[in-house]
């Protein structure tokens, strides 16, 4: 199914941090998906990692419905 493929394609997408990602806290990233852009909850891919606002990140893991693990590009 096309839609199913879209979900799979989340991994590898590049987004932008809109809420600082710090250890122990949930960050936020904006990712272009389904023809629009949506905000996802974000965690850093490495422990103790801090990613400040505006950093470009790549999605390395996706937990439906709204959570991604990101790593700075």
């Amino acid at each position: 199914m096309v839609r199913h493929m879209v979900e799979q394609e989340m991994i590898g997408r590049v987004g932008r941090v809109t809420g600082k990602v710090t250890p122990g806290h949930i960050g936020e990233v904006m990712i272009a998906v389904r023809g629009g852009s949506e905000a996802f909850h974000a965690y850093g891919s490495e422990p103790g990692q801090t990613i400040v606002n505006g950093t470009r990140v790549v999605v390395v893991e996706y937990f439906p419905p709204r959570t991604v693990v990101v790593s700075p590009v």
Partner: protein
Amino acid sequence: MGTFLSAAAAIVVGLAIAAILLVVLVFRSMWRIAEPNEALIISGRAHRPRGEGHGLGFKIATGGGTLVMPGISAVRRLSLDLRETDLEIDCVTHQGIALRVRGVVIYKVGDDLVSIANAARRFLDQQNQMDQRVHNLFAGHLRAIIGNMTVEEMIRDREKLTQLTREHAGTEMEKLGLIVDSLQIQEILDPTGYIKNLALPHQSAVEREARIARAQADREATEKEQEAEAQKALARRDSQIRQAGYQAEVDQAAAASRQAGPLSDATARQKVVVEETRIAELEAERTEKQLLVEVRKPADARAYEQVTLARASREAHIHEAEARAREIEVSAQADAARVKLAANAQAERVKLEGEAEAHAAQARGLADGEAIRARGTAEADTIKARAEALAGHQEAIIGQQLAENWPQIVEAAAKPFGSIDRLIVLNGVEGISEALTQALGQGVAGLQAARRVLGDPGVAQAAPAASANGSAVKEGEPV
């Protein structure tokens, strides 16, 4: 035949059209379109997608059309629209300050299939109650969020607010298939005045600056105004001084012109007076000279005459007096010599007489002494004898003494009358006799008193001496 055929053809065409219409209508009744803001939840037909949608049990259609078999499948719409819920809660900040917060939360059903499925399972029949549910949920979340913030952070730190919103509410909302787009705090009601107090220091500083600036501006303006006033006053003063000066000149000129007539009159009169004065002076001078000739000169002559005469007279008197003095002097000297001689002779005679008399006196004194001693002895005896006799015959002796002194007593009693120049008695002869009787009565009363006095033994001793000089009578006088 032809009409039959054409009729048959028409029927066929009609049937075909009807069939097409029917197909279209059926298709229309079966074809469901999902609008961009909604998801179709199709259930009923066995639906087994693979992968993510595995085990879903129903079909979700978004952004397109899908064919639904009426009677087999049921189609329901889930709105993906933005929704909002107003919140108003009483809460306490991280610092323990009680606040009333009004906020709004904006959320929607997530666009991904999982979110739609979660939301469909929870809210499909209660879409209109979704706001109420979310309100109840978010009241607690907001309270927790604010409990982790301070008032200052609420006002200034948007980042922290969204962060906390995400942490507290995000995952929980995920369970409901909802995503929180935004949480806004619209209003903070602050019954304790904390926010107002936060503002106070800066506000006061600004106010102070404003007041200082205003005061400074006011001062400068006032200074300038006063300077301008002073300059105006100065100008006014100068103007008035000048006006007064001009006015004075005008007045002076006017007065001068007004006085011109009287002044010339006065000048003319003055000249007249001057001339008259000179005339009077000349007349006075003439009179003076006349008097000099008529009065003073003769008077001077007379005075000189008298002075000369007086001087001559004085000279004559002086000479006369001197001559007399000389004469007196000479005669006095002669007298003095004569007196001196006479005095010497007299002195000699007195001396001789004194000596003779002294001898005589001495002899006489001796004789007298003898005589007095003899008489004293005799008198002492007499007094002694009389004292003895007195002890026995006091009354008789007093009577005798009174008889001896009677004339003096009567005289003393009559004394008041003697000093009277003229006696007027109002009741005739009887009056005279009465007065005499009264006077004599007084004398008798004096007699009684004298007797009383003499009757006193202390006085009786001195009685002979008193009777000798009449003091007994004098004692009776004041009675």
